[in-house]
């Protein structure tokens, strides 16, 4: 556990906790984005460049913006009164219990005792090869789905445009 | 949105970020107060715009921020004393304002204008038209976001015209040049030759201007089918000038009235078909080309002679009781002055028919359904000067 990991872990945790506890919806999203970014950094720290950068690209660049847009277009950018969460203590207790349970289970299972394989060199290539060989079918399906979505979006957009004028 | 300085603005400020009820698309409406401090309202003009996303669903023009009692002041001033005030109506075209007012007074008092003065009036008026149209297109492009390049080219040409005006009238903008029954001073030696040089170089500027703009895809996309005014609406709303002609109505007071000596000039009147912003832009370009022809002819034909009717003296000018309406085709449209004389040295009633204001009446209609970005372009194509709108 290096200092870098510690800092990143704290930042990530802080972001995620803030995302849950802040009053303002937009602040929550921004805090969540911090969490995403911290997570991406953790990946990078694990030398999983591709995964880390994709996390950044997709989550910070995509999901966070999407969330922000959703909030903006559905009015509630104003701070709302804190919902009646008088059970937060109970929630904490339950969460802690679950955490302890899981930690205990993992501890028992001996995962920690296993030796880690060496970090793969040049993650991009491995991922590419894996996607193009073992996971070719899912990849193609996802690709098809996205293409269909894209075409659909264009069709919807053009239909709207020509119908208006 | 600026700080509250006006009761109406206070109201807008109170509403602040509050959102109006939902529009037809179900998205909330946003009320934005564009102006009076806004880069492209051409002065202190305000538009209360209600937006559905970026689409305009309501637009309320608010003007009067530059109101300065022009007409009431005029009723306290002598007839001559009003002349410099007309410069300040549409401060880009002071010479045509002068002419319109002089024309009204001349009608009122039955004054004849000497030949040379008529030619000088035509020359100055057409130079004014060149300068106004060039400048307007520059500002229109500025509103469209062209970072000032066409505007600077227009200013470059306007500078030449203003130098000519200064040499003739003594002032670059506030000319105060025309008098009842003529003009104040004769053209200094060599002035007409200078005008000739300027006029000869103007078509080249226009060609450059058009190369920069006319075929530009972005400009066409931004202006074509934007802010359409149909022929009927244009006539019913009382639009005049290039606005009206862009909608395809053949109405040019220079042709209709033939005031001054305009019936001597065989110029053509360009007409638009679509009545959109692009037509309004192009009509102005084509009008400039026609103005150049008028200027060439006027410079060739201008006779020698007096420039002022000797019977009319500037002081103690008391026209007989009566009323008169003098109108000219100012670069912006029909500029009219309506005067009632009660025989004293000051007009009993003085009324301006400002083309800018009346052309502005269709603003909301033109903007509805368009984008925020189109508002400024449409407003720019109307060609307003707040000095004239608010008076």
């Amino acid at each position: 556990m290096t200092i870098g990991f510690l800092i990143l872990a704290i930042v990530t945790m802080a972001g995620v906790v803030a995302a849950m506890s802040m009053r303002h919806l937009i602040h929550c999203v921004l805090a969540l984005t911090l969490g995403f970014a911290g997570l991406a950094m953790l990946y990078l720290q694990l030398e999983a460049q591709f995964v880390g950068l994709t996390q950044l690209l997709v989550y910070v660049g995509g999901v966070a913006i999407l969330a922000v847009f959703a909030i903006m277009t559905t009015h509630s950018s104003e701070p709302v009164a804190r919902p009646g969460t008088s059970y937060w203590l109970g929630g904490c207790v339950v969460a802690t219990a679950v955490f302890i349970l899981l930690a205990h289970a993992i501890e028992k299972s001996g995962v920690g005792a296993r030796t880690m394989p060496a970090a793969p060199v040049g993650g991009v290539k491995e991922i590419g090869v894996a996607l193009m060989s073992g996971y070719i079918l899912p990849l193609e399906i996802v690709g098809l789905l996205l293409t269909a979505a894209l075409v659909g979006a264009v069709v919807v957009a053009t239909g709207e445009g020509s119908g208006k004028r | 949105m600026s700080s509250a300085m006006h009761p109406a603005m206070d109201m807008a400020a109170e509403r602040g970020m509050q959102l109006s009820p939902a529009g037809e698309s179900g998205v909330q409406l946003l009320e934005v107060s564009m102006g009076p401090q806004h880069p492209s309202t051409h002065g202190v003009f305000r538009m209360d715009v209600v937006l559905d996303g970026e689409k305009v669903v309501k637009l309320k023009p608010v003007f009067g921020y530059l109101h300065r009692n022009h007409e009431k002041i005029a009723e306290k001033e002598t007839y001559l004393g009003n002349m410099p005030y007309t410069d300040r109506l549409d401060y880009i075209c002071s010479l045509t304002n002068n002419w319109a007012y002089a024309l009204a007074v001349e009608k009122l008092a039955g004054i004849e204008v000497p030949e040379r003065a008529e030619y000088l009036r035509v020359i100055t008026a057409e130079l004014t038209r060149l300068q106004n149209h060039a400048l307007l297109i520059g500002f229109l492009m500025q509103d469209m976001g062209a970072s000032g390049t066409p505007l600077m080219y227009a200013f470059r040409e306007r500078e030449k015209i203003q130098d000519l005006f200064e040499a003739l009238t003594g002032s670059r903008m506030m000319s105060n040049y025309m008098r009842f029954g003529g003009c104040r001073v004769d053209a200094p030696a060599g002035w007409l030759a200078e005008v000739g040089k300027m006029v000869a170089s103007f078509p080249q500027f226009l060609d450059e201007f058009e190369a920069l703009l006319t075929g530009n895809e972005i400009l066409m996309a931004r202006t074509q089918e934007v802010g359409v005014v149909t022929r009927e609406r244009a006539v019913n709303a009382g639009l005049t000038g290039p606005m009206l002609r862009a909608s395809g109505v053949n109405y040019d007071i220079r042709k209709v009235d033939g005031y001054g000596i305009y019936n001597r000039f065989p110029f053509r009147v360009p007409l638009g078909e679509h009545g959109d912003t692009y037509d309004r832009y192009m009509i102005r370009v084509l009008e400039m080309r026609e103005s150049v022809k008028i200027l060439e002819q006027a410079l060739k034909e201008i006779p020698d002679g007096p420039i002022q009717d000797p019977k009319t003296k500037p002081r103690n000018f008391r026209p007989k009781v009566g009323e008169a309406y003098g109108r000219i085709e100012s670069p912006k449209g029909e500029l009219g002055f309506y005067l009632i004389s009660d025989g004293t040295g000051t007009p009993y009633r003085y009324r301006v028919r400002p083309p800018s204001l009346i052309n502005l009446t269709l603003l909301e209609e033109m903007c509805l359904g368009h984008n925020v970005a189109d508002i400024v372009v449409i407003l720019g194509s109307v060609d307003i000067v707040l000095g004239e709108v608010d008076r």
Partner: protein
Amino acid sequence: MTRAVAVDQMFVTLNHALVAYVPAVWRPLASAVLGVVTVMVVFLTLFALTVLLERKGLGRMQNRYGPNRVGPWGILQPVADGIKAIIKEDVVPQSADHAVHFLAPVLIVVAAFLNYAVIPVGRGMALTDLNAGVLFFFAISSMVELGVFMAGWASRSKYSLFGAMRAIAQMISYEVPMLLAATATVMVAGTLSTTRIVEMQATYTGQIPHWFVLTPWGFTGFCLFMVAATAESNRSPFDLPEGESEIVAGYFIEYSGFKFALFFIGEYLGMMATSAMAITLFLGGWSAPLACLQWFPTWGWFFVKLVALLCGFIWMRGTLPRLRMDQLMNFSWKFLLPMTLVNLVATGLWRFLPVGWERWLICGALVVVPYALLGRSINWQGRKVAVRRYRYAE
């Protein structure tokens, strides 16, 4: 030749020499710090020069002198601007969200600087050689959007909100064609590492370099990339987010003083970063344009190319009016995106067709024909635009 190499590598050598003074444990850190500081200094200087160049160039295009009062020929104008920005009062609207309002410009500048981490400025002169460098670039670029949104939202002004919405919509829309245009290069190069991509282009056939821009797909890709880059960096004619004639200044309307300057820096750094990426992907990075010109240091070539591209941006800004939001979207989704997809196909064909003139013909036709067709049918607002003819009464 050795002297040329020495000049070329002088910064690398200097770096090594300086780092050698540091204890071995701290060397990686020292090297990184040195690199980062150098990049910041160099690109901030370049930013100042670009601002000056832009103001001067725009001035000349508009038949003005441009700034010429501060220092000889006005070259100290950026300094004066900087001092002005620093000593100006920092006004924050009362209703603004202060923390977010403060963080937004910082985030934008930081993100803009991070971009330079993967740009190979010269031979062996990239800060880091990530093997997913191109991906890193786009990932970081996407962070700018967040900063823009934060600025627009936190200012609590309707104009800034408009600007932010426009900016985000625009940046998302243009990120897609930009990525796809870059993908073409990645396909041919077979790597995401910027250093490798440049090295692949730094070879020569006779005098002609193997720049990707000198192929049909590369040229198309370069043009598409630059158009998308213009939009990404909110430059004219895609400067809608700040659209000063419409929404006054867009998302940074409520910023003043140094925070405003930060936005300004961020915008220019973004522009320079995307230009640098275009150079890396298509214009052969630091490689010389002709084999006989290799005596010139590689970093010199890089900056020459960078300034040339920046001049292109300035030239466009001096000429073009601004698009409208719906047209901007149409342009992205209905023109740029199909073109990039077509270009990907052309790239694939180029990769697998045998070397020869047929390859040029097929790939060229494959990009030119769709360009002509799409360009003709581009639908600006439900109808085509055209130059009109006018009639005259009598």
